[in-house]
């Protein structure tokens, strides 16, 4: 068996492990759906109460939009905490000696769990959004592309969390870095307000960041999903995924060098 297929096989195994774990955690999923409902209902209600006339938006579509952004936010677990624990407890030492890359294992396992949770959140969220607004804002043919964009977005968020987790090697406790990162995602990603409603200059900044590729770009597909828009979202996500993977590889290599040099 060659190296590539070995790595692929192992990654798939971790992915399935993560998926099954997330499947089994029924109470966790129930709680997550409940918590997810709250900001969605709050934001949707605020949009209903907002004087939107002349803005080019309507409250029903914006309700679908916040359902999408929140589903992506709630699908990603807290893998940075797992990595933090592994590093601070020294467990990573044993992991480094295994033949399968430690970081890749976490990414694959978390991707499995994130995928399951995302699909569950989108299914549940779409149902309540449909019941609440009585409409589906996109053509059925666009649905697979929208789901795929959400998957890429969640995966991108996951990669950044892995980087934050690995920062433990330098900063000891990465939680404050995570809070700040999360708030930047909320603001520049357009968690509640689509970037197109921002002032021009801040919209332009937001669009150029990975935060938009995580929230605004995939969620904007429920506002308008023509083929050009879909292709543009995938191109931006592809670019940021490539850069994020390079960043993960670089930080992981630097962290490994640090462990080998100074111990865990």
């Amino acid at each position, binding site marked *: 068996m060659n190296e590539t297929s070995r790595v692929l096989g192992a990654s798939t195994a971790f992915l399935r492990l993560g998926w099954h774990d997330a499947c089994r955690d029924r109470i966790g999923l129930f709680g997550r759906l409940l918590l997810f409902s709250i900001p969605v209902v*709050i934001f949707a209600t*605020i949009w209903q109460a*907002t*004087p939107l006339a002349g803005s080019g938006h309507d409250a029903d579509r914006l309700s679908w939009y916040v359902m999408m952004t929140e589903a992506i936010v709630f699908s990603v677990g807290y893998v940075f905490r797992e990595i933090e624990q592994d590093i601070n407890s020294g467990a990573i030492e044993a992991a480094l000696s295994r033949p399968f890359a430690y970081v890749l294992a976490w990414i694959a396992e978390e991707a499995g769990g994130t995928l399951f949770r995302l699909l569950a959140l989108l299914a549940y969220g779409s149902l309540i959004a449909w019941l609440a607004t009585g409409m589906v804002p996109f053509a059925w043919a666009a649905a697979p592309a929208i789901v795929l964009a959400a998957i890429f977005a969640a995966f991108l968020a996951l990669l950044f969390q892995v980087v934050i987790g690995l920062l433990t090697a330098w900063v000891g406790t990465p939680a*404050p870095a995570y809070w*700040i990162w999360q708030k930047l995602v909320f603001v520049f990603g357009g968690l509640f307000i689509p970037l197109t409603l921002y002032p021009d200059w801040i919209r332009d900044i937001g669009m150029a960041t990975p935060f938009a590729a995580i929230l605004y770009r995939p969620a904007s597909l429920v506002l308008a999903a023509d083929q050009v828009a879909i292709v543009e979202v995938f191109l931006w996500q592809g670019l940021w995924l490539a850069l994020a993977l390079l960043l993960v590889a670089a930080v992981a290599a630097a962290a490994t060098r640090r462990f080998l040099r100074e111990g865990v």
Partner: protein
Amino acid sequence: MTASFGYLGALIATNLRAGFARPGPAAMQLVLMAINNLIFFVVWALYFDRFPSLRGWGQADVAMLYGVAAFGFGVSVALAGGVRDLARTIVDGGLDVHLGRPRHPLPSLLMSRSIPAGFGDAASALVLWLWIGERTLSDLPILVGLSIAGGVVMLSSIAIAQCAVFWWPGALKLADQFWEVTVMISVYPQHVFGSGVRLVLFTVLPVAFMSQVPVEAVREADPLKALSVVAAAIVYGALAVVVFDRGLRRYASGNRMVVNR
């Protein structure tokens, strides 16, 4: 009576000293939490840049609301952070130490932990009130007072939810979620909701008293609304003590899962 106040004072002082036992990391958490809140408020600044008002509320009102919620929550967890672990302490049998003392166990349980980042929340509240909220220093006493009363409602309702484990130990996770839901809702304006949701927010999930009603009281200079927040603090506080004591009786009768450890 004075002895009781002395005891509570000593409890608060000891808890704070423990929270700040490592001042460096505690201060960093505090500062980052304040920055964290202010970054999140940017979302509202962007909203009001685009839309003039939200059902009659402007940016200053929402800033005041966010500040009231942050102040009440922050001071509560900085002084009585034990509320977060209450359910776990009950399930793990950690009550016993507190029960072996000649005092009511609730104060020492709640004040067994301090979360220093809470003072960061309180600090961000000052910025939100005085700068973005366009309030003056003369408004501070009433804002602080109502925030603290709201904080008491929050502490009490969370404590009540955590006490569910006296009857059903499996409620541990749900108790944690009650905490998160409460905090989540408290930072958003609630006058946009319909009467059904608002009824819930005034009763089972009394979030209204933690931010919305205090802000309405100040905006409308309505002493009755201000009094209702204080009354809610007293009612929910008393209810928390009653529920805890009921739970304690259940605990003492020992019909729990732990037979012997």
